[in-house]
């Protein structure tokens, strides 16, 4: 199968590319960022997904499947640019899929789209609406992209679209949202709160995405590995120091005193849990994580 991966230079996407090549697929990659030591079997195009060269890849290579991983978060990108990439880019890619007869697409999204709130149930299922945008404006573009990707299921029913809502991951690449939160030695916690965090090993996440491509999933799926653990345990097991900060002071210490920067609205995600139910994904793919939460966190410990 000929598979196009957008955002291929990202941490997870490289792993997915390796796995797909190993299983005998032909991989084409698009990314603005370079991938200097691109492995054999991966055809790399350094281009922007919203520009003409990207469309040309669709036109000339005619891939069978698209794995869309070119989304960005507030950790790296400003608001306007984020909307252009996450929403504009996603829209363009699905239109190309329709236009150039790509039969399958996988959108790799995040479980944070459900939003963190004290009165939502612990294990979110796929039929719940993603509410994060209302309370956390830096996530609104990702929520919209997630919903847009889901709308491809009725907009272009000939494309088998899978929307994956991936929980946090940790791994040797030290990339991802949770890794950014744990990037400094001090981790800002909100005093009196210790939510459950759901995380999986980077390699398990790569495997899950690969499985979603190979099983030709259709629909929206939560992707998670081992059961969740409290944030304080995540912090201790990864060798960091959790500093409890009274809630009124929280936003003023972020980005200072050796704490990572977070947007103001992110506080809900440090107070309340976002935990997803991965039953549907496991049933559809037979996915089984290889690494426990303990192995994942302790593996992340080295500095």
């Amino acid at each position, binding site marked *: 199968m000929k598979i196009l991966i957008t955002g291929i230079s990202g941490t997870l996407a490289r792993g997915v590319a390796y796995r797909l090549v190993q299983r005998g697929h032909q991989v084409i990659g698009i990314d603005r960022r370079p991938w200097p030591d691109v492995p054999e079997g991966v055809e790399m195009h350094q281009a922007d997904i919203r520009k003409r060269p990207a469309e040309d890849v669709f036109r000339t290579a005619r891939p069978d499947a698209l794995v869309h991983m070119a989304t960005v978060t507030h950790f790296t990108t400003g608001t306007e640019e984020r909307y252009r990439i996450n929403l504009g880019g996603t829209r363009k890619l699905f239109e190309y899929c329709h236009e150039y007869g790509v039969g399958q697409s996988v959108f790799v999204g995040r479980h944070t789209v459900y939003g963190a709130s*004290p*009165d*939502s*149930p*612990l*294990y979110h299922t796929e039929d719940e609406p993603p509410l994060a945008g209302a309370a956390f404006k830096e996530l609104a573009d990702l929520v919209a992209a997630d919903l847009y990707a889901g709308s491809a299921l009725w907009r272009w029913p000939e494309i088998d679209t899978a929307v994956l809502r991936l929980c946090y991951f940790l791994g040797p690449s030290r990339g991802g949202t949770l890794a950014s939160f744990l990037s400094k030695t001090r981790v800002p916690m*909100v*005093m*009196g*709160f*210790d939510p*459950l965090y759901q995380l999986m090993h980077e390699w398990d996440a790569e495997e899950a995405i690969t499985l979603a491509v190979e099983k030709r999933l259709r629909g929206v799926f939560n992707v998670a590995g*081992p*059961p*969740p*653990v*409290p944030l304080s*345990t995540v912090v201790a*097991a990864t060798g960091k120091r959790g500093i409890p900060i009274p*809630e009124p002071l929280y936003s003023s210490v972020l980005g200072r005193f050796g704490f990572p920067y977070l947007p103001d609205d992110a506080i809900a995600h440090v107070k309340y*849990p976002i935990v997803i139910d991965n039953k549907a994904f496991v049933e559809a793919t037979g996915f089984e994580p290889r690494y*426990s*939460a*303990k192995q994942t966190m302790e593996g992340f410990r080295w500095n």
Partner: protein
Amino acid sequence: MSFFDDKQVRLNIDRLPIAFDDYGFDRFGLSKKALIRAYSPVAYLYRHYLKVTAFGMEFIPRQGRALVVANHSGGIGADAAMIFTSLILNDEAPRLGQGMAEYFLTRSPFASVALSRLGHLTGLPEHGEQLLSDERLVVVFPEGAAGAGKLYKDRYKLLRFGTGFMRLALKTGTPVIPCAFIGGEEAFPQLFHIKWLAKLVNGPFVPVAPQLVLFPLPVACQVYYGLPMHFEGDGSEPDHVIQEYVDQVRASMERLISTGLDARPQAFMFEKMRGSKEDTSR
């Protein structure tokens, strides 16, 4: 293991039919360590302060889902704590009762963490369903917070029941175990509520009892569990059918309450009730 840990509590928590991970947490954020820490002092109160006697423990299943439906009383949640402790201290079949917590608690700092570590989730129907499908024992008070806030003059009168628990039981095929707690109204006889303070702290009510502190009097209490009740259905029944089932549960709780009230020699009893089949005061 610490000096303050209670031996019976620790042994029984080790025997709970719940899967804990490498760090001693279950999939809902329940912590083994927190359970031992919290239940140890409460077990002391259970045995020596409120001198609780539990009847009908044989109706509690060793494992598998069950829904304990109890009357609420005594304002400050001592009744709930004692019901949960009676389930843990049951050597035949120790179980962890998991409650459905009040919304205002799960959004307040510290309380939200404590509740989650002890296995009490926000009172959402989804949570009840998730716990029961995971073969847990859920304890509900269908009168809600209002039931706990009954004044002394209304003692042991059941308020209007919510019907959510019955739909939950039907949907998940769970047996309902009626339960009555006796003594809560005397241990914390509520004279009146301070309404403005309740509004200030955003809670349901702030009760005032003659002891003036938010702590029960050392009145001997009893817990009665009744015969498990099985209902046929899938939870999609019309309201009047559900109401009928709820009334059946309510009736059997009323029977348990009147049995309990008749059985005790006097209302304000400061000695442990005699004639109990099992002695829990080890």
